[in-house]
């Protein structure tokens, strides 16, 4: 028997629609969902490697309970009952000694996040946090400060844009299939690409204009661009007049930031800046200054992200075809979204969060996600109170939070660490219990509310049964809740029950998804009227250059430009990090096919710097920061600025069971210092300096 199952990929968090071909009960091929415009069968390499995740013998196959020391790798296989009983007993004793708030739950945001949030509410803990802040907490805050919307609520019309401007947004490597496909087509139709990055990536090689900017000076560039645009009247005056507040304050503020000044700071010529500003002005509003994807580089990150968004506003491109748009939900057409478990009546927790988000200490970050990198210090200093248990759900504090040694020290203080994961992640290896989750091909998940120009809803449908003794996340949490005596908040047995419950208010049923994998609330793109209808959610209802959110919290809307920190010693390099097309964060390095393509992360170092240090291409080198020293290989290249070095994120795994990735390359987190943008909430991953020397 052969069949095609329309579902959602989960090799990364983008969740592209896929179609799985199933023959005699086995998944035999995966392609992009051909029913979805903009996908049409296509996949990225990670998506194409899905079957090797499914058949991987080096993933977690059964619940496991630690026997030796943490991290020593001595395990016994356990039944689900045994593992759940073990966790429940320990959780109960932690809660009875330290209260529900002593339990923290870290998670990579996903379709089932509402379930774990419900669990945490049920045990009266405020400490559910996600990976998001580590990726783009400051972007989230920046977006809210200007538009009242978060970044996921803002879309980009890649298909119709005439000019896309990317600040290190390496979109052809850290790729999302649909935007890549749409923008490739737009480029064929003449769309222009400007790419700004201290490192020349594949995206740079596709760009019409590439600026190898000095690292950390993007804000200087933007202040100068705004200076030019305002001075030369290159902005969309009507749009600004209608939808922007604080324009005059901005104009006054950028007055001193001339292109000549910025040229010295950024290494980009003033003439080029002016030409660029004139070009985008001609193309406006079909211009997108991309606000970024992973935006966690510097301590003033929020202000760079705000400046990018303000450039869009000056181009009048927010809520414009070929520009950006506010994503529309089912409410726009009078329909209802799927409900979530968190919509239930749940206990209200009176405690503050472990990361103090929402308190005067840390007012602006999004409490829906929290600030993950605060966890180690919170545990170590028991400030604001002791944290004693950590549930890590597809989230790895050891490799995602800067300063691994410090994080490990914090973990050592915990009475219980439980990991729910598909892979033997480093945190799984450092846990007390590992609960194996079924892969995305083996499970159904909560529906995905896909808001956009045309609100839709997608469903991950189970393609094949689980290969090992694994369970879907919602069922794992339900089992645990049951043991904790909290069943009343989890009105389902199977994921399908849950999905049915969630779909009830929508009028759709599970079977509606069978044919195409999604349902559409409307078939017509919804654009708000640019003269009257854009519903910004700021207090003023407009784009707030002068932000009430910031100013009310005591922060300036336009801080004076500060040059990036210089290295402590002249022989140090700024460490910058990034992604490649073949890997997702920390989760795919052990995948058979992806590992074969990219198995290690060499350190990019400029030819100039390498020559000075006597380092040749592929040479073993020692890289050291204040936090860590490790061996790598040098990738000597002309395509990176000499003051910085670069490494891919996600390597240096330390789990022997995941043999292909074990000890291959280095983890950027080990080198980094745990520094945070205190306003926006992101960590500053590009503020660590390292030394490099040849390995003797």
């Amino acid at each position, binding site marked *: 028997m052969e069949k095609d199952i329309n579902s959602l990929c989960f090799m990364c968090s983008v969740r592209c629609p896929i179609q799985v071909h199933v023959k005699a009960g086995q998944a035999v091929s995966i392609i992009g969902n051909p029913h979805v415009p903009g996908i049409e069968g296509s996949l990225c390499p990670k998506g*194409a*490697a899905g079957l090797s995740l499914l058949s991987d013998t080096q993933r977690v196959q059964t619940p496991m309970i630690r026997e030796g020391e943490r991290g020593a790798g001595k395990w016994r296989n356990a039944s689900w009952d045994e593992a759940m009983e073990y966790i429940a007993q320990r959780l109960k004793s932690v809660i009875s000694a330290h209260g529900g708030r002593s339990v923290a739950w870290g998670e990579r945001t996903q379709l089932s996040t509402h379930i774990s949030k419900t669990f945490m509410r049920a045990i009266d803990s405020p400490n559910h946090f996600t990976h998001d802040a580590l990726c783009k907490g400051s972007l989230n805050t920046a977006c809210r400060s200007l538009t009242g919307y978060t970044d996921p609520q803002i879309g980009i019309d890649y298909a119709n844009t005439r000019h896309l401007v990317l600040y290190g947004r390496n979109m052809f490597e850290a790729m999302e299939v649909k935007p*890549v496909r749409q923008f490739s087509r737009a480029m064929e139709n003449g769309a222009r690409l400007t790419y700004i990055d201290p490192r020349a990536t*594949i995206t740079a*090689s596709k*760009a019409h204009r*590439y600026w190898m900017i000095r690292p950390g000076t993007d804000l200087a560039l933007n202040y100068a661009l705004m200076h030019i645009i305002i001075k030369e009247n290159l902005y969309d005056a009507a749009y600004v007049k209608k939808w922007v507040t604080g324009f005059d304050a901005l104009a006054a503020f950028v007055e001193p930031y001339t292109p000549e000044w910025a040229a010295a700071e950024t290494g980009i010529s003033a003439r080029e800046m002016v030409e660029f500003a004139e070009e985008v002005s001609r193309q406006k509003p079909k211009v997108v200054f991309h606000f970024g994807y992973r935006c966690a580089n510097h301590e003033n990150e929020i202000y760079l992200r705000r400046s990018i968004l303000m450039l869009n506003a000056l181009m009048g491109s927010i809520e414009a075809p070929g520009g950006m748009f506010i994503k529309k939900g089912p409410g726009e057409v009078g329909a209802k979204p799927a409900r979530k478990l968190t919509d239930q009546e749940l206990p209200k927790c009176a405690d503050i969060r472990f990361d103090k988000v929402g308190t005067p200490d840390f007012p602006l970050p999004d409490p829906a996600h929290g600030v993950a990198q605060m966890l180690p210090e919170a545990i170590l200093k028991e400030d604001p109170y002791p944290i004693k248990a950590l549930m890590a759900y597809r989230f790895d504090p050891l490799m995602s939070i800067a300063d691994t040694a410090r994080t490990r020290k914090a973990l050592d203080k915990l009475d219980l660490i439980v990991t729910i994961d598909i892979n033997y992640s480093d945190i799984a290896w450092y846990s007390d219990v590992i609960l194996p989750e079924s892969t995305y091909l083996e499970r159904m998940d909560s529906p995905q509310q896909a808001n956009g120009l045309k609100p839709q809803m997608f469903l991950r449908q189970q393609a094949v049964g689980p290969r090992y003794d694994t369970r879907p996340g919602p069922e794992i949490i339900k089992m645990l809740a049951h043991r904790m005596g909290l069943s009343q908040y989890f009105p389902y047995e199977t994921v399908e029950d849950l999905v049915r419950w969630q779909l009830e208010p929508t009028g759709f049923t599970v079977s509606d998804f069978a044919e195409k994998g999604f349902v559409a609330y409307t078939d017509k793109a919804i654009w708000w009227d640019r003269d009257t209808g854009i519903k910004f959610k700021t207090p003023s209802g407009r784009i707030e250059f002068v932000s009430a959110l910031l100013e009310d919290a005591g922060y300036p809307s336009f801080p004076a430009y500060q040059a990036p920190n210089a290295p402590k010693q002249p022989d140090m390099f700024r460490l910058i990090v990034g992604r490649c097309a073949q890997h997702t964060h920390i989760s795919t390095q052990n995948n058979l096919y992806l590992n074969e393509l990219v198995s290690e992360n060499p350190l990019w170092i400029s030819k100039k710097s390498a020559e000075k240090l006597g380092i040749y291409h592929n040479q073993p080198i020692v890289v050291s920061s204040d936090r860590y020293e490790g061996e790598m290989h040098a990738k000597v290249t002309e395509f990176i600025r000499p003051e910085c070095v670069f490494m891919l994120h996600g390597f240096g795994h330390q789990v022997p069971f995941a043999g292909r990735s074990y000890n291959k390359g280095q983890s950027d987190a080990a080198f980094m210092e745990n520094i945070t943008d205190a306003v926006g909430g992101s960590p500053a991953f590009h503020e660590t300096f390292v030394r490099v020397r040849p390995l003797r």
Partner: protein
Amino acid sequence: MSKYYLFHDQKKCIGCQACVVACKSRQNLPKGPFPSLLITIGPQWVGTRPQMAFAFMPCFQCENPWCVAACPTGAMQRRPEDGIIIVDPNVCVGCKTCMSACPWGSPQWNPETGKVVKCDSCYDRLEQGLQPACVTVCPTACLYFGTPDEIPEVRRERYARAMIHDGEQEN
């Protein structure tokens, strides 16, 4: 040349290797063989622009295939119906002569089976009216597969389109 033609529009290719992975996955291959390979050239500076190019290297399905001539066992065969060159694993003994004979390095060694594997243009998919796996998954749609008359005059069309748009926008 088989009756089909695979065109790789290097301009659109971003070197992501989804094609390469899909190819391996379809044949369920272990570490080692790459029946299709993406070769990266560059980056190199062209003026102020870093330039990279990618060459997609499946089997070219030669008209007069050297691999077939070199194969002493008859395992390497050219399908009469469409000219696609396939290797019959039941006949292949792993002498690797096809690998050495092919000027493009197309036949690949499967260390698990001790036999040769190669790009067969996914003839099983073609028979079902589908496109080869590499073409199907390509995110930028830079791979085209079909009979030569079906292949679009990609470069000419692109030029025409660019002229129209640039005419609107630029001068």
